């Protein structure tokens, strides 16, 4: 408080206020006259709107007090995680804690490096205080607390508060990381995130493979750092560990690079096999449901769709007619048909495309394949906009300095293009988040479908309780989408996209 006061004092002294027009705070009456009753029709409109709002508030209050929220209290777990086995609930909580820890460390590290970056360039640093975070995420926090308050028991409250505590503690931890280990912090956050999946889904198959891969990459980066610090390999390589390297003769770099690659492969494969043999025995995503499934499908759709989308966008920009044609046909086809028809495709047609001696993957896996293709087509169009926004001179300068076509795209064009489309990408994320509700139609238990399942329970059947469950679900969707759109606007302002 005292800091804010002293700031305002400094501000007042710094500005000579004598030649500015006098400003005075409007009193309530003056404000109302200016903003609500400035002429006869605005007064009329105000009165009508006030009456309407009063009516709506009365109706809502009446609904709140007359409705029976038992259906929500009984089915809170159904809304959040679907039909996940109830005696294994500890998995979801542990997974949630790990995920919050990952978010915390990630955001702390990112904040710290953004601050260091800004200090280096002499820019004003952005405040990331606790109240600031609370203001940015108030919708999600408020709705989560609202949801949990339906449980009418203490443990969920404590557990939810615990996740927030974990988030803030790990965020502080992430902020304390020194510059040298910041990349490690990000790797660590990524591993924690994957670990949270591991607890939930068990360590067989894909997740173990991904954890192994990430561990391998991490080892590679650590080994290269070690090699740089010890001066193994060529002297020219120092300080370039994570960058592209010029092709030095094999003999000079063999000392550092080959060893680090071998180490990476050994660690990666070791972790993979280790996880497979331990086998935590969880439940794969075909058993997931509720809000958790909705968020998971959205994240997978965007992150798997992004690389495909970038390739499609580059293909569409290509001069080669075959590549361009194939990309255009795919993009326009997917964008021209409704997502429902694609989901029906995944439900009925995709099973027919697998080899006859292969087991058909489950409906959710098939739906995720289609959703990835769907989001890839939309992302491709977004990225294309970013590619067109990169000035032609950038490419020409890169060509003049003798870079190859691939390198121009990778080092010059794509970084600029992707930076410019971050807000649009968040918009696509929101729209995919809303579109996952269509999984209902092919009978998957996502967030919207949980409402129907709850209403089909014998206890609540045929009582018209959708009037209670639908607003509840709508609030959940709204909180996440609203927060994300706010965040995208913030990023947009910070990047200065759209400011000409």
């Amino acid at each position, binding site marked *: 408080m005292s800091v804010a006061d002293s700031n305002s004092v400094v501000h007042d002294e710094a500005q000579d206020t004598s030649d500015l027009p006098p400003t005075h705070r409007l009193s309530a009456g003056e404000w109302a006259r200016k*903003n609500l009753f400035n002429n006869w029709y605005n007064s009329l*409109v105000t009165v009508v709107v006030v009456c309407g*709002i009063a009516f709506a508030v009365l109706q809502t209050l009446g609904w709140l007090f007359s409705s029976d929220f038992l259906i929500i209290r009984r089915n809170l777990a159904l809304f959040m995680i679907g039909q996940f086995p109830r005696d294994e609930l500890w998995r979801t909580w542990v997974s949630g804690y790990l995920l919050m820890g990952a978010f915390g460390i990630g955001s702390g590290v990112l904040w710290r490096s953004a601050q260091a970056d800004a200090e280096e360039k002499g820019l004003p640093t952005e405040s990331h205080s606790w109240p600031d975070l609370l203001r940015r995420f108030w919708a999600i926090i408020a709705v989560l607390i609202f949801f949990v308050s339906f449980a009418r028991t203490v443990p969920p409250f404590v557990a939810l508060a615990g996740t927030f505590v974990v988030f803030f503690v790990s965020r502080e931890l992430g902020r304390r990381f020194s510059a040298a280990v910041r990349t490690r912090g990000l790797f660590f956050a990524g591993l924690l995130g994957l670990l949270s999946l591991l607890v939930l889904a068990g360590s067989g198959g894909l997740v173990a493979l991904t954890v192994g891969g990430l561990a391998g990459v991490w080892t590679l980066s650590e080994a290269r750092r070690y090699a740089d610090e010890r001066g193994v390999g060529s002297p020219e390589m120092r300080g370039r560990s994570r960058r592209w390297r010029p092709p030095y003769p094999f003999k000079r770099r063999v000392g550092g690079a080959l060893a680090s690659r071998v180490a990476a492969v050994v660690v990666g494969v070791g972790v993979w096999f280790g996880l497979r043999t331990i086998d935590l025995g969880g439940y794969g995503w075909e058993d997931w449901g509720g809000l958790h499934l909705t968020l998971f499908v959205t994240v997978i759709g965007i992150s798997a769709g992004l690389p495909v989308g970038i390739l499609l966008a580059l293909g569409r920009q290509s001069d080669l007619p075959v*590549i361009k044609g194939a990309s255009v046909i795919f993009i326009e086809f997917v964008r021209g048909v409704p997502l429902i028809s694609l989901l029906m495709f995944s439900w009925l047609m995709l099973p*027919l495309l697998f080899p*006859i001696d292969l087991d058909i993957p489950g409906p959710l896996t098939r739906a995720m394949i289609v959703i990835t293709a769907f989001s890839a087509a939309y992302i491709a169009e977004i990225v294309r906009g970013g590619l067109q926004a990169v000035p032609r001179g950038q490419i020409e300068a890169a060509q003049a300095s003798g870079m190859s076509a691939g390198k121009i795209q990778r080092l010059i064009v794509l970084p600029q293009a992707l930076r410019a489309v971050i807000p649009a990408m968040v918009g696509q994320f929101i729209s995919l988040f809303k579109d996952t509700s269509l999984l209902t139609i092919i009978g998957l238990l996502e967030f*919207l479908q949980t409402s129907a399942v709850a209403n089909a329970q014998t206890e609540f059947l045929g009582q*018209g309780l959708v009037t209670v469950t*639908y607003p509840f679900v709508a609030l959940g969707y*709204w909180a996440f989408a609203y927060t994300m759109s706010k965040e995208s606007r913030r990023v947009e302002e910070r990047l200065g996209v759209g400011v000409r």
Partner: protein
Amino acid sequence: MLGRLLLLVTALVLVTAVFLVGRYVIDKVTRRDTSDRPPPWRDLNVLSLAAQVVTLGLIVTVGAWLWSNFRDRTDAIGLELTFDFLDQPSGISIADNPLSSNAGIRDALQQGVKNTFLIILLGIPLSVLFGTLVGIARLSANWLVRKLATAYVEFFRNIPPLLVIVFLWGAVFLNFPIGASPTAEAAWRPFGGWMIFSNSRFAFPSIIGLDNFGIYQLLIVASLVAAVGVWVWRTWVFNNKGTPHRRALWSLATVVVLGVAFFFALGGPFEFSKTTVENRVWSGGFRMQMPYVAVMMALVIYTASHIAEIVRGSILAVHKGQVEASHALALSGLQRYRFVILPQAFRIAFPPLINQFLNYTKNSSLAVAIGFAETTSIISNLFGQSQPAPQLLLILMVIYLIFSLILSVIGNLVNRRLQLKGA
């Protein structure tokens, strides 16, 4: 799969070899100097040809592999890949539609496309109208209106359209205060029963043609032409003499006067039909089923929140000097929007609006969730009767592709007309 990949590599090598040999022969025949040409592995022509052959080869290989899997599986379950099933009886009966369930699948699909078209036809103009109003309200001088419009936009933009549809249907329309049961006796009948609002249908009066109705329709078309003539004439008067044109009023008067005159001249060529309900059977008049109203209203509410943002952005993008000039000319608020701001704003807003129209069209397929008999719903119904899925999916996608194509062609034509020439 391995065999196919080998085939692909062979084909690639062959094509490249043919290209190189062919070029060599042509160079020799035309006696071209090739000393400045880079070696084939650095020649851009060769490389781009190779890249394209590889891509095409990969697509063909993967496509052929999928197709053979598909044939294996369809043969195993005995699925025939023909369109003969379209003539079989559909087994679908659509509410308020004379189509019998013995009619062919082809006819049922036609009705579905018609219903999709009806959702689009009424919904798009309504959502533009509503969205524009909300967009203007977001910039209102009235604080309360502004906040209300913002709350509306921020809420509906951030929830799924499917949720809006099922909520409107399940939580609002099925609990419609008038008529707790689907019998029409409990319905609300304003205007002496000429309109009926119940929780199964909305009914409005319609027109039934009697004798001379065909001639009357022709005459109405003629009077519409006359009205356009009057419009042009009033515009001419306004441009040359400066008297107020009032062309909308004049044209409307022309149509009404001529229409009434012809009505009496032909001795009453039509009569109004009132909807009647006897023993739960609805007849006469123009009837809207509740699912139709629910889908359309939900999509209008959802789409309007997006259109409002587009309109708001476009209004803000209109040059500030234009608004100031209209203030200087002492135009009223209505005149300012009607003559200065909106025409320019819509020029800016139209391209993103086309996108919203396409989204609206695609979202109309969500009607399947509440069983309104449009294209997707009917096809999903046919899936349930184990009609062949691959062909039906193909039909479904092609129908929506055609809808999208037509809408974007119309949109682009209109857009071209809207944009300033030579700008």
